[in-house]
């Protein structure tokens, strides 16, 4: 997947013209924003908490190797098997390898952005293993053969009628009523059978705690509990940056995660997995594997983009973003959409593949305001725009204008010449002292720009007028 300027514009246009999608996006993102604000308002000390969280995340990344090694040591001590994957292909090979060794043909999955990122389902299917997504939203888009359009509400773009049609098809029936509780009951029944039959459960990890070698999963539906409890094997795929050194840190993390995401003080189920079942445990997986996924993350450590790794995937920046709220998730052409996706996708998957995303922002700064870790997303969007130019990835027109601007501003004589030309050239466009753009650039006729003054400040200064 990619997001060139044209692709982004085309996909965003489709989304903007889809009245039903616009209504759904507005309602959902609005509700998430209100709920988040209300949940945070109940903690008078939440700003201090966010400061502390940011400091903790920054300190963790500065010393990430040590925390990962501690995690590995602790997880291994309780019987989990820890794997390391440089990239997506390597991670997929590890997971399919475990499944094949165990003779697994059916896998149940709980929601995981990391496995979306590496296209694990495709790899499993190619190896003859059937992956079943069990988060209701993820299952809907899996049945539809689509990508998630929101980090925490992946099927935000689907209507209940569309869901009913998908479920009916899966059940081999002609029709199902488009009734939400009834559809939920259908999903419960169909997926319950899968949970109990699966030979392996795959999850992501909201965070991993180095102190005890634990993986923490946050869900509302209970599918996270199912995939880590019912099958004989559990595999968690988790990005190397999602480490909390201690349980104190994990508590801080969990205190902000659900509140920032959905406005819940705590998600319905917060599951902590620390190795396979112990002697005496009546049930639980015999094998627990943790795949630590790099996929471009370690390259960011120590760079001007390190801060992006503080992200905990709450989705608050999507909900508040005026671009995401109009363009929707699919415009970004990546599992990661919104402001976080606009920064993360080019960094993980290649700026040349996602040249439009650094521009998919008005730089209003709302994302930074709501981020629990106060990640400076606008700064990194600007850095990426500079990288686009430096790497020759900007469009020829933009390159020409940027280089022209740089040349002009470097010398006061060129500047004076160009502004003099501009003063002369702008005359046909001046209306009532405002610069009105030609109709092709200004279809509604509302856009006006300040014009170049008759005399520059330097001239006024020289002539003693200021």
């Amino acid at each position: 997947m990619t997001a060139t300027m044209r692709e982004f514009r085309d996909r965003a246009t489709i989304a903007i013209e889809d009245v039903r999608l616009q209504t759904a996006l507005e309602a959902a993102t609005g509700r998430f924003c209100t709920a988040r604000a209300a949940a945070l308002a109940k903690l008078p000390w939440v700003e201090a908490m966010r400061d502390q969280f940011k400091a903790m995340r920054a300190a963790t990344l500065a010393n990430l190797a040590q925390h990962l090694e501690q995690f590995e040591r602790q997880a291994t001590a309780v019987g989990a098997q820890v794997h390391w994957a440089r990239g997506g292909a390597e991670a997929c090979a590890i997971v399919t390898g475990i499944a094949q060794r165990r003779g697994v043909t059916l896998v149940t999955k709980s929601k995981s952005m990391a496995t979306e990122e590496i296209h694990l389902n495709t790899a499993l299917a190619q190896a003859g293993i059937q992956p079943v997504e069990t988060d209701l939203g993820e299952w809907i888009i899996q049945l539809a053969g689509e990508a998630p359009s929101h980090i925490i509400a992946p099927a935000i773009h689907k209507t209940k009628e569309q869901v009913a049609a998908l479920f009916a098809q899966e059940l081999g029936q002609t029709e199902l009523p488009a009734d939400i509780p009834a559809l939920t009951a259908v999903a419960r029944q169909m997926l319950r059978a899968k949970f109990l039959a699966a030979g392996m459960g795959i999850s992501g990890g909201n965070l991993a705690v180095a102190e005890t070698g634990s993986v923490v999963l946050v869900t509302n539906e209970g599918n996270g509990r199912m995939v880590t409890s019912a099958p004989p094997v559990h595999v968690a795929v988790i990005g190397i940056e999602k480490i909390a050194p201690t349980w104190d840190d994990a508590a801080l993390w969990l205190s902000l995660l659900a509140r920032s995401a959905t406005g819940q003080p705590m998600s319905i189920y917060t599951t902590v997995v620390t190795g396979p079942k112990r002697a005496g445990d009546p049930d639980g997986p015999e094998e627990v594997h943790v795949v630590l996924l790099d996929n471009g993350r370690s390259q960011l450590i120590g760079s001007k983009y390190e801060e992006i790794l503080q992200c905990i995937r709450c989705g608050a920046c999507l909900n508040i973003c005026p671009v995401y709220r109009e363009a929707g998730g699919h415009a970004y052409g990546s599992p990661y959409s919104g402001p976080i996706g606009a920064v993360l996708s080019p960094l993980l998957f290649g700026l040349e593949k996602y040249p439009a995303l650094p521009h998919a922002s008005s730089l209003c700064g709302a994302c930074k305001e709501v981020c629990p870790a106060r990640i400076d997303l606008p700064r990194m969007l600007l850095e990426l725009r500079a990288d686009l130019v430096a790497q020759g990835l900007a469009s020829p027109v933009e390159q020409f204008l940027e280089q022209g601007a740089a040349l002009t501003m470097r010398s006061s004589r060129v500047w004076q010449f160009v502004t003099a030309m501009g003063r002369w050239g702008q005359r046909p466009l001046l209306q009532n002292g405002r610069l009105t753009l030609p109709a092709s650039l200004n279809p509604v006729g509302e856009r006006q720009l300040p014009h170049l003054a008759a005399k520059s400040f330097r001239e006024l200064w020289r002539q003693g007028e200021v």
Partner: protein
Amino acid sequence: MTARTEILQRLRAQRREVNVPHPWQSRQRFDDLGQQFAAALTAVYGKVYLAASLEEASGQLGQLLAELGARRVVANDELLLSALDPAARWPDLVWHIVGQTPGDLRAFAAAADVGLSSAAAAIAETGSLLIASGPGRSRLVTLLPPVHVVLLPARLLITDLFTFIAARGGEMPANMTFVSGPSKTADIEQTMSIGVHGPKQLSVILYQE
């Protein structure tokens, strides 16, 4: 070079000395932990029953089982529950006590009407029950049946996650879940629907000892 070595080398090359912030201390205060717990859990569609003694709690449990029309009940083998001897108390019901009743626990739990357990702790701020795995404590008992009933002595209530972590001691169980309400989703048209994969009903009988 293995993936592990490569990743760790790259990270170590960028290692920096930083000040690690002091752990966050709980600032939450509640006058009545039980009241706060009940309010928080009720707000997310959990049900809370208050009892003045274990005996009263067991009366409420019997009433609840009758109201639910429960036939098959699967229960974790925990001290609090064994003191109650539920199988003897309600002999009309079909009981499966983990580790005591012979037979397939998984199959019984999958077809049970009610799962009965206690908790290792409960967090007042968020109305969360801490359910831990261990000998006699099945994960499926609290997950598969449509109703999960919890007997919770008031002494297990703590303020928030931070006080829980500060008091935490010893080893972690293989599985520990903070349960904060019945299973729910809003994945279809952002409309709340209760009871997707986990229990559709969560009832807590909170009693004084």
